[in-house]
């Protein structure tokens, strides 16, 4: 066969395939978005008409708004906590040698590799044993541990790229260790710190099973609220909140990408 034709066929097949996969990835999102604009009572695709009805109902629903507020509070708290833990761990490992350094690195990264349901059960036994049940802080702590690997890894990457001589120059100019951390090291890895925190935030925001096992009685985050609602009906309001979440997630991802100057490159 003619080589050029053969290559062209290969390339065409590949491009067709890639398009198909991209459709596969986008289809569910597009469908949900389209259905959220239905004026009717039920999920329909294609939707009959266009209406923001379900977005209004969402905004007017104290249940959903409470869940949204809960989600944001938990995600914010756990992102901050996770960033301090992951950041300190990354800084310690980057700055010093420890005989058990690998152990600390492992301890920091392993929570994401474990099935979340197991983390959830572990935290449940933990808080039950402590006798501290139903506090929002429980969920903040549980999610923080779950998402710590992300700030850890991103900040480690950032520190890895920071030349040690910047810190030495600062110390040499008379800045104390803390001043150096504050004025040199942190500003230089700021993008990584924010990216890590945002990853942690978004992951906590979207996490279900740990939240369900650890959250107190009647405390609902958005994923819990969606799961519970699915039990009773496939209301378009679920599509509406999903769209809100998708947009928020994409916005945050975009922010991370801008911050870190293209994390995929």
């Amino acid at each position, binding site marked *: 066969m003619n080589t050029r034709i053969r290559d062209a066929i290969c390339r065409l097949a590949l491009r067709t395939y890639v398009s198909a996969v991209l459709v596969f990835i986008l289809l569910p999102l597009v469908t949900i978005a389209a259905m959220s604009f239905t004026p009717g*009572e039920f999920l329909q695709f294609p939707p009959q008409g266009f209406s923001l009805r379900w977005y209004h109902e969402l905004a007017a629903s104290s249940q959903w708004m409470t869940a949204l507020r809960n989600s944001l509070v938990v995600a914010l708290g756990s992102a901050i906590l996770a960033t301090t833990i992951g950041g300190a761990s990354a800084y310690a490992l980057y700055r010093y040698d420890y005989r058990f350094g690998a152990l600390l690195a492992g301890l920091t990264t392993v929570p994401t590799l474990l099935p979340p349901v197991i983390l959830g059960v572990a935290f449940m036994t933990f808080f039950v*044993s*402590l006798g*501290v*049940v*139903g506090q929002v802080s429980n969920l903040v702590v549980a999610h923080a541990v779950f998402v710590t690997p992300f700030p850890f890894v991103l900040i480690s990457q950032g520190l890895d790229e920071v030349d040690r001589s910047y810190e030495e120059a600062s110390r040499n100019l008379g800045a104390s260790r803390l001043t150096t951390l504050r004025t040199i090291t942190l500003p230089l890895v700021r993008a990584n710190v924010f990216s890590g925190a945002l990853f942690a935030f978004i992951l906590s925001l979207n996490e279900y099973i740990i939240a369900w096992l650890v959250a*107190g009685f009647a405390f609902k985050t958005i994923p819990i609220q969606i799961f519970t609602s699915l039990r*009773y*009906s496939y209301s378009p309001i679920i599509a509406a909140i999903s769209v809100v979440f998708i947009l928020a997630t994409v916005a945050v991802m975009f922010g991370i990408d801008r911050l870190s100057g293209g994390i995929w490159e």
Partner: protein
Amino acid sequence: MGTSRRSYLTGAAGSAFALTGLAGCLGGGGGSGSSTETTVTPTEDDPLVVSVFGGVFKEVLDEHLIQPFREETGIPVESQAQGGAANVLPKLESAVRGGNAPVDVADMSAIGTLRGRHSDLWMSWSDDEFDNVPKVSDDLITRASDSDEIIGVGSQAWFINLVSNTEVLADPPTSWTALWDSQYESQLGLLTPAQTSFLLDITAATHFDGEDLLSTKDGITQVFEKLAAVKPQSSLWYTNEANFEAQLKSGDAPAGMLYNDVTVVMEENGAPVTSTFVDEGSLLDSGRWVAPRTSDKRGAIVEFIDYASRPEVQDTVSRNLYTAPTVEQQHSSLDDQTFEKIVGPGLDAAIVPNYEMYIEREQFINQQWNELIIQS
């Protein structure tokens, strides 16, 4: 088991206590000692918190129970949606153990009420504290195991009926024997897990002349063996009503077991479905108003439960939710047609689950049940 259940519980509580002590201030004074003697009046900042089932339940109860109660008594009250009863209880248990129950009153399934009783979670009352509770059907009152005190008062009752899609099945099944009828192979939607489905009770009532069989392990095994024969007919084991509703409506699973109230709502919304009170008796399940014993609002709790048990409140809720009122029929003012639609041949004709069995043989039943529905 040689050791009594209570001694296990004491042990568990003891260890929880020790750990609470270790936790120090974290527990916020995790003392879970009886606080029933003191009663606090709810305020706007610290209202009476009532948890109810989510979805339509909450909407209706907010409008026809919570709001009117607040208007009439002036007691600040707010409602919360809880998840499905099954997964709520373990959390409530841990909360009460921690001494900080997040709600004052909960609408609890009958099984949940009994589980809570085993763990000594509930506040108890004597009959004479209430005016309206005596009108509630005795079957729907749960009492403490070691005294005559009331711990749970019927909130709503609901029937699990045989339902079918009228477009697919011209001749809807009316007997539970349909579940074993190969005519319905791969057509039926059935509830899971065991303590939501009550298929053990249905099987015992349909094939074994009543429920005595369920009092022994051998009997239960026998019932499970019979139950295994419904598997070929099942097209869907569901936990989410929405799941089966969609398939029932579309005819994907043209028949099955489903709550009468849910089905009636579907029918009224124009879906081609019908709900049938079964020849052998529909299954009657019900909820209870319970109060975690750690709540400090005893006075308001009693007032609320008594208000909820008023016949006219019960009737209003029933008219809107299509659940059965829990007061005896003579106190109800529902017209015959409505009564027929939501209670069918009456509470007495129904199969009442052997709730105790599900608790005493929990692990055994769950294991058997999982083997039944999961293993192919």
